[in-house]
């Protein structure tokens, strides 16, 4: 049921007349749900601004939230949901902040059955506002999750220099195609940049190895070989060794070692350096 323009005017007047009482009653209700995670002054500022935005929208003749005159209100609502989403409030807590406005308005209404029809229309308007808040809350959260996934992708694939001419990639977490691609590209680029002829891929942190993960690792090794670098796979746990054999994965002539230390010793042995040699002072 849409708000009539007369109804909008009446409510705009009502919001202006009772602004102090309204904001007070609204704050009381919201504070209860937020349980002290937001200071009262901060909340007071937010609800005060929202009330003004509602009033301006209604005075501008907005009968639904999509009206151009409600643009200011929409901006306020999305700002509210953005800040709530970033501060870690739940979706319900965010939406309730808006819904509580209805109850606050109901208190200030005269005891008269004639306004009931208009109040219901106004209530629909506030519902639409709350749903809009909910939508923008979800959008902000999704953007946050996407950002974090990207950061995770960058953080989780370091290529470290282990020795002169030896680099290592400690793989942590499940390897999917996207991550495997990033790991492969970064490892190969590091090989070129540092001119290291040996790379150790350590899979201690990989919880499970299936045929797909093995395929990714093998592709990386073959690509490194094509470029003229040798890859050693280390950190194979007993269960993983059993899985590899059970799945029938063939590592061919690729060197596999139980621990990173073994792999490093093997590489140093091949290059003719000794790990035990004390440093010259």
């Amino acid at each position: 049921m849409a708000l009539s323009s007369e109804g909008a005017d009446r409510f705009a007047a009502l919001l202006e007349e009772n602004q102090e009482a309204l904001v007070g009653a609204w704050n009381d209700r919201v504070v209860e749900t937020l349980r002290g995670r937001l200071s009262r002054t901060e909340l007071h500022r937010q609800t005060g601004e929202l009330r003004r935005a509602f009033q301006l929208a209604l005075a501008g003749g907005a009968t639904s939230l999509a009206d151009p005159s409600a643009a200011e209100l929409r901006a306020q609502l999305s700002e509210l949901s953005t800040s709530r989403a970033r501060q870690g409030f739940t979706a319900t807590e965010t939406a309730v902040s808006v819904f509580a406005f209805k109850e606050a308005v109901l208190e200030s209404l005269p005891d008269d059955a004639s306004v009931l029809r208009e109040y219901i229309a106004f209530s629909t308007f506030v519902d639409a506002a709350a749903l809009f808040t909910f939508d923008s809350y979800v959008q902000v959260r999704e953007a946050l999750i996407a950002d974090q996934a990207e950061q995770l992708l960058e953080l989780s694939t370091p290529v470290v220099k282990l020795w002169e001419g030896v680099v290592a990639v400690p793989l942590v977490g499940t390897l999917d195609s996207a991550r495997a691609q990033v790991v492969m590209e970064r490892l190969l680029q590091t090989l070129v940049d540092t001119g290291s002829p040996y790379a150790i891929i350590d899979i201690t942190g990989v919880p499970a190895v299936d045929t797909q993960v093995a395929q990714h690792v093998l592709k990386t090794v073959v690509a490194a070989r094509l470029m003229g670098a040798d890859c050693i796979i280390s950190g194979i746990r007993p269960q993983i060794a059993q899985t590899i054999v059970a799945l029938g994965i063939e590592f061919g002539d690729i060197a596999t070692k139980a621990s990173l230390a073994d792999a490093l010793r093997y590489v140093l042995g091949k290059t003719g350096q000794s790990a035990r040699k004390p440093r010259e002072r």
Partner: protein
Amino acid sequence: MERVPVLKIGDILLVSIQIDMEDQVALQLQEDLAERIVVTGCHGVIIDISALDIVDSFVGRTLATIASISRVLDAETVVVGMRPAVAITLVELGLSLPGIRTALNVELGMDLLARSRAEEYDDEQDDESDPVVVNES
């Protein structure tokens, strides 16, 4: 037609490919290189492909052929400087360039040639004396 220059440095022939590898260019290089190996009597060939963005199956096969020809003429071939993107593409295509030795850059390629040459020389000497255990760990 463009040609790829073949440079002689000491005991090594250096080929740095700076132009797009078209089929004709690759075949011409194969011919030139065979001739130069025989004329100079070099024992090592380094082919630098660090400037190549694309290595297709024909170029890959030509490189393998060059390596085989050089081996017949008693010269080791090392392909150096393959870009990561090229390596990834070759792997995705299932081309692993069998029979080609690779190194990350020219310097490591020269090391590799020197090492394999030294081993060969050792082997020849070992044949005359008693076999010696190399592992002394």
